[in-house]
């Protein structure tokens, strides 16, 4: 029981209860919120946790890729909670976000082991994973809204796409079950494949199901957006890898990968083009992440082990840019009403550390060397160039779009202050330490991305890639 995924689900839940009980002591509950997921990640690093955990009538397993995925998600969550501590005072963030984290961890543990539909072996449904993921995603609405009067549009769209995805996935699970009993019914296989792809594109926020992404990125507290974009969206990507790898119907069908690659190209292009057109840093962050999702899908859509590795690099290395940019935005918002270029005029002189986080984070998300995002994009670009020159050109254009959008904003951030009486705000030592730490990691992983190679090699070896 101890060497099962139990600690990974129990620790965030315990932390959620403790942070709710200790809400009067903000710093204490923030420390609990940051330490418990970090402890869970440490346990997962030290122990394989591969014993089955009986959970509501079925066993939860943790395979190698999901173990690494959870370590990543927990470390990101821990860093996000530290960032929240330094930027906002709302205690409600921690318990709800921790409960969402536990639910998402359970969802990854409940994914299908191997679904041998064609081979006639018993069908292992993924409905538990889908429902637990949906519960986790719905819970994130509370930190996303963050108690702001009248701000609901982005969150409602996000909720809508998540909820529509639930029947789509559950119906496909039922159809796959039917197909396992009558393997000659090709129409069942086609319907299930179409539904699964539709559900995955919905939950991954692929164009045209992306409308919530810029809304959430500009309306919500930046670190809440970072939680959804860096944890929930990444967990959806891992769910996709599990489903495509585990369901033979999907991983043996080259059309599935063609659709994913095409969706990725369109998403990357739209993300880059729309990032260029924005006059709001929050929306630029949303579209930059959209472009990044597209790049990861293009790499995975190449249907090779190297492509899968490149996609995982993109996903993992997105964190540094996203974290830095959202931290910068969160600090900037403490004195600006919104994220528009005009509101953040002269930010570099008023809040230099916020400006550093914002600028470096955005350039990392865009894939500018020598930052972390570049290493991920470079791998994806190499894979895309191997299959299709047009695709690699699209990926380059998407990066250029994000960089150009950010450069338009830079002229506002760097504009000198007219009033000589305004002094730059002094950030606390911990805030500076957080930004500098993320900055150093962003450069280190940009210069030496091979540091992640052993982890990614382990993960790719566990996923099924049918040549």
């Amino acid at each position, binding site marked *: 029981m101890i060497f099962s995924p139990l600690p990974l689900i129990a620790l965030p839940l315990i932390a959620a209860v403790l942070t709710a009980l200790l809400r009067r002591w903000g710093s204490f509950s923030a420390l609990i919120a940051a330490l418990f997921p970090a402890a869970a990640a440490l346990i997962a690093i030290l122990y394989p946790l591969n014993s089955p955990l009986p959970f509501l009538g079925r066993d939860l397993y943790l395979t190698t890729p999901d173990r690494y995925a959870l370590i990543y998600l927990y470390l990101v969550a821990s860093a996000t909670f530290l960032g929240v501590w330094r930027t906002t005072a709302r205690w409600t963030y921690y318990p709800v976000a921790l409960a969402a984290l536990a639910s998402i961890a359970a969802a990854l543990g409940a994914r299908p082991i191997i679904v041998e539909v064609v081979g006639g072996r018993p069908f292992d449904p993924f409905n538990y994973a889908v429902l637990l993921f949906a519960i986790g995603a*719905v819970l994130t609405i509370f930190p996303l809204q963050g108690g702001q009067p*009248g701000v609901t549009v982005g969150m*409602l769209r996000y909720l*809508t796409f998540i909820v529509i995805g639930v029947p789509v996935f559950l119906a496909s699970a039922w159809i796959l079950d039917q197909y396992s009993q009558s393997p000659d019914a090709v129409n069942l296989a086609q319907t299930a494949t179409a539904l699964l792809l539709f559900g995955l594109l919905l939950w991954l926020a692929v164009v045209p199901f992306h409308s919530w992404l810029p809304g959430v990125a500009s309306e919500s507290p930046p670190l809440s957006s970072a939680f959804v974009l860096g944890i929930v969206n990444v967990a959806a990507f891992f769910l996709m890898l599990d489903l495509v790898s585990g369901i033979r119907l999907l991983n043996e069908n080259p059309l599935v990968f063609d659709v994913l690659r095409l969706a990725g190209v369109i998403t990357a292009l739209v993300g880059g083009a729309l990032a260029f057109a924005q006059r709001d840093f929050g929306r630029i962050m949303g579209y930059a992440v959209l472009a990044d999702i597209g790049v990861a899908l293009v790499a995975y859509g190449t249907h090779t082990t190297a492509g899968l590795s490149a996609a995982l690099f993109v996903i993992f290395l997105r964190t540094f840019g996203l974290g830095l940019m959202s931290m910068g935005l969160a600090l900037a918002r403490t004195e600006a009403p919104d994220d528009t270029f005009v509101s953040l005029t002269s930010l570099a002189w008023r809040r230099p550390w916020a400006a550093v986080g914002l600028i470096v984070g955005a350039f990392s998300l865009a894939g500018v060397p020598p930052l972390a995002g570049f290493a991920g994009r470079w791998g994806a670009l190499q894979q895309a160039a191997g299959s299709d020159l047009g695709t690699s050109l699209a990926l380059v254009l998407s990066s250029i779009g994000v960089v150009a959008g950010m450069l338009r904003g830079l002229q506002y951030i760097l504009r000198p202050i007219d009033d000589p009486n305004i002094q730059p705000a002094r950030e606390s030592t911990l805030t500076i330490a957080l930004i500098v730490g993320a900055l150093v990691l962003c450069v280190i992983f940009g210069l030496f991305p091979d540091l992640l190679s052993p982890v990614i090699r382990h993960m790719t070896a566990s996923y099924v890639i049918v040549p």
Partner: protein
Amino acid sequence: MNVDIAKTIAALPGTAVLIGLLIAAALLVILVNWRLLILALGAQYILIGLMLTRVVPIELAAVKALVGIMICPVLYITARRVNWGRPEEDETEEEPPADRPRRRWWHILGAGWPVRLIVAVLALAISIGLASRSPLPIVADQAASRDLTTGAFSVMLLGLINAALSENPLKVGLGLLSILAGFELFYTAVEPTLTIVGLLGLTNLFLALAISYLTTAWASRRSEVSA
């Protein structure tokens, strides 16, 4: 005694229950009055529970209806707290002058109700047509399968329309809850596992709480603007 009552209710004619369900689902699109909307949602959940009694044990159908009935008070309390979606000043409004034209009874339907009525009728026609042509193989009884398919398709399609056409979080939320409720009408019949029923119930409850939270936030800005 209780079991007898449940059995009597479950013995209601399937077609009558289906017609009631379609009317309740259509009302969720047509109406804009929050009190009536929550009432229609409650009726929809009860009728879904009744339809399910034909294909799953009464206890399981009752759990489904109960989850829905638990959601209605959550939304009711929220709606009351935010003054049923009206700015606060409406409450303190003085008596209308005598020369103002008297409101007709249909004002409770809100502006634009004929368009919403047409959309709802069209959606019902599409879903009934689709379900009659190719009913899902839910149970061995053809008539029951057809009724369940009709109910599921109609409630889901009308829910989708509600979610797509509105900007008010309560109405969008009712649409999302309807999408799940319509799907559960079909899914509970094919997957009657208690754990799945429980997880779906939990999803519904958290969704209702999220909708309440968003509705409160939406109404608070309206109050600020009107003040």
